[in-house]
């Protein structure tokens, strides 16, 4: 092939000597600086291989003389980020929770921090936007609260959880299993359901509801109140509104009275630092249902049995 090398007449350039069905290639040389650039790249690569992790071995790659690792780089970045955040974090730590809404910038930072922590620790049950799961986990975005929707109450619930075994300060309430334990029979439960549906505006008053009211006053009013307004100090839900954690239709209400769920929420006070708990509280507060702190009541009444707000 090489003997076919010739000078192309049109360009005056020699061909490389190969020919494919009459098509030939001109031998246009690269500029020499191109070669130097290539050598420089080789030198650069050699240095890179020595300084940085490069050769894949059986278990890991060669270490490189600089000791650089991607995990190390991440650690450094995380460290630097924590240092950058430190002033805000300490300012949030130093500000009483109830004073945060008055400081919009600090509040905004706390809400953002809380949103990040929420995505890690809370979304598994409460959902990405805090909407909860129907008939399983409560929505945090509405205006109906079992344990109170002001900042301090939310923070307390996050720190101590709900119905945590072996934790004295936890939020705890227990609705009796009226059906399972035979406290009320099926007809009586149906009457109570009728009453609850009347006071929540879902049914018209009836004879069954009237019978149910008597039963309600005897069995339920102690926690849910005579009018069904609920009692946040014991986590008894309001029965007169449109928000139902476990459903407000006849079947759901019957199921709840027969055997309540008594849902559980982990406590986070011993797992997360106080600033994170504080930020979580501001985030949940900001979801749309946040309430103003209740007017200070007499100390004996204002707090729950265990100093719960």
């Amino acid at each position, binding site marked *: 092939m090489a003997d076919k090398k010739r000078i192309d007449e049109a360009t005056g350039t020699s061909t490389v000597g190969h020919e494919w069905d009459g098509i030939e290639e001109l031998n246009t*040389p690269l500029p*020499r600086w191109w070669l130097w650039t290539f050598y420089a790249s080789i030198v650069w690569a050699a240095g890179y291989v020595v300084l940085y992790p490069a050769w894949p071995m059986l278990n890991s790659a060669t270490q490189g003389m600089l000791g650089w690792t991607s995990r190390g780089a991440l650690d450094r970045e995380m460290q630097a980020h924590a240092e950058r955040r430190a002033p805000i974090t300490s300012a949030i730590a130093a500000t009483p929770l109830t004073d945060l809404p008055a400081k919009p910038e600090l509040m905004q930072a706390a809400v953002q921090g809380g949103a990040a922590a929420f995505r890690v620790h809370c979304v598994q049950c409460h959902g990405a936007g805090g909407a909860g799961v129907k008939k399983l986990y409560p929505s945090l975005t509405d*205006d109906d609260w079992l344990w109170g929707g002001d900042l301090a109450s939310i923070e307390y619930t996050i720190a101590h959880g709900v119905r945590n075994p072996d934790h004295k300060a936890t939020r705890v309430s227990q609705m009796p299993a009226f059906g399972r334990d035979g406290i009320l029979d099926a007809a009586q439960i149906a009457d109570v359901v009728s009453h609850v549906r009347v006071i929540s*505006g879902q049914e018209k008053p009836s004879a069954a509801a009237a019978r149910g009211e008597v039963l309600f006053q005897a069995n339920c009013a102690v926690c849910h109140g005579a009018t069904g307004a609920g009692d946040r100090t014991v986590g008894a839900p309001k029965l007169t509104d*449109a*928000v139902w954690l476990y459903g407000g239709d006849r079947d759901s209400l019957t199921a709840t009275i027969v055997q309540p769920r008594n849902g559980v929420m982990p406590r986070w006070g011993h797992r997360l630092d106080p600033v994170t708990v504080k930020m979580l509280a501001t985030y949940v507060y900001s979801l749309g249902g946040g309430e103003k702190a209740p007017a200070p009541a007499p100390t004996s009444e204002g707090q729950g049995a265990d100093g719960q707000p």
Partner: protein
Amino acid sequence: MASPDDLTGENAPLYAARKGVYPKKVDGPFRRFKWAIMGITLAIYYGTPWIRWDRGAYAPDQAVLVDLANRRFYMFQIEIWPHEFYYVAGLLIMAGIGLFLVTSAVGRAWCGYACPQTVWTDLFQHVDRLVDGDRNAQIRLANGPWTFEKISKRAIKYLIYLTIAFWTGGAWIMYFADAPTLTADFWTGQAAPIAYATVAVLTATTFILGGFMREQVCIYMCPWPRIQTAMMDEKSLLVTYKDWRGEPRGSVKKAEAHPGAFGDCIDCNHCVAVCPTGIDIREGPQIGCITCALCIDACDGVMKQVGRPRGLIDYCTLDDAATEKAGGVGKPVMKTLLRPRTLIYFGIWSAIGAAMLFSLGQRTRLDLAVQHERSPLYVQLSDGHIRNNYTLKLRNMETRPRRVAVTVDGLKGAALWTEAGSRETAGQRIEIALAPDSVTRVKLFIAAPGDGPARQDFTIATRGLDGDPRGDSDIIQFDRPEADQ
């Protein structure tokens, strides 16, 4: 030294060394035109960041500023936000079509006069002449031994190269921050590391590309000469050696001895000597020719000396070359420039420009973007109402604080409140204070009666409360639970 064009034989090298180019000094109309272009382009490049432009208290007072940190692009009275980047895209399209226009009309005029590589190479070649002398002195020095004179001249020359290169790199960063502040910060070591890195990189590239690579950039690295080949046609102006007039070449003496036997070219090689890319234009159109027209100046000077008409080397289209070769007269230049192709390019180019100017004049400086929160889509409120959450992005693109109202239309019984308010204080509209030249994010809660369609469209609108009632609106959905739930 072997050049790419004269490779012959079995032992042709695989890599071609650069052939030194030592362009000779020349004077003439094109050289003076190039001086003017160089002066203007360098003045624009170095000077623009220092022009001040008063925008009030809330915006920078630099006329041209690419504020990457705050994502703003300022150009005199025009301020571009990131979401308006299509204006920049439009400018780039105009630049592209502008290059098509110029190329189809006057060939590689960009390469020959205005390309930064050409301008800086030209500047560096002037430095060569200043330090080393003209062409012959440069060649002598390059080929000579490393005497004290050569070393000191090289040192001085590279020092001047470096100064120009540093100045070039330094001017670049001024477009990205307040120039006086950045200059002070730069010299006191307080500028951002990226500023120093940028200056270092651009100093190095200017030093290498302008001082040493020069025509190699045009011949080997730049894609534009290849693209231009496709843009040119037989009606594009090219720097042409009129071989039908010049050949056969012969000296003045020979021509006097044999009248009529020789052409006008006296083979003085002036055209080769002045060429900044080191080519011989008499070999015909070639990729190394950037059409700087310096050979026209050189040849015209020689023709004047020997008393022959100018224009042996001249701008000429391929069509005219054929006509003149056949003994005819080429078309006038204006007729070459104004033809359907260039006019169409110019039409497209100016239409884009006019459309952009028009839309710049029409754009409102208060912009609303609404996002419907999807998790959850709706919230059941205890009184039976339904609440939907929205995130409003209110862009106040004016450099003054503003007060605006946000209202809804088409949603019965709607009550609006923001994080700052509560449902108790909710009303038909909310008022929001907007910081100047910034985006304000507002979380908007809207509650409406629960009886209604599962999904309905309504309008959220905003308008200024401070004299300029223009505003913006967005159609968005309000969701309710499905009936069976």
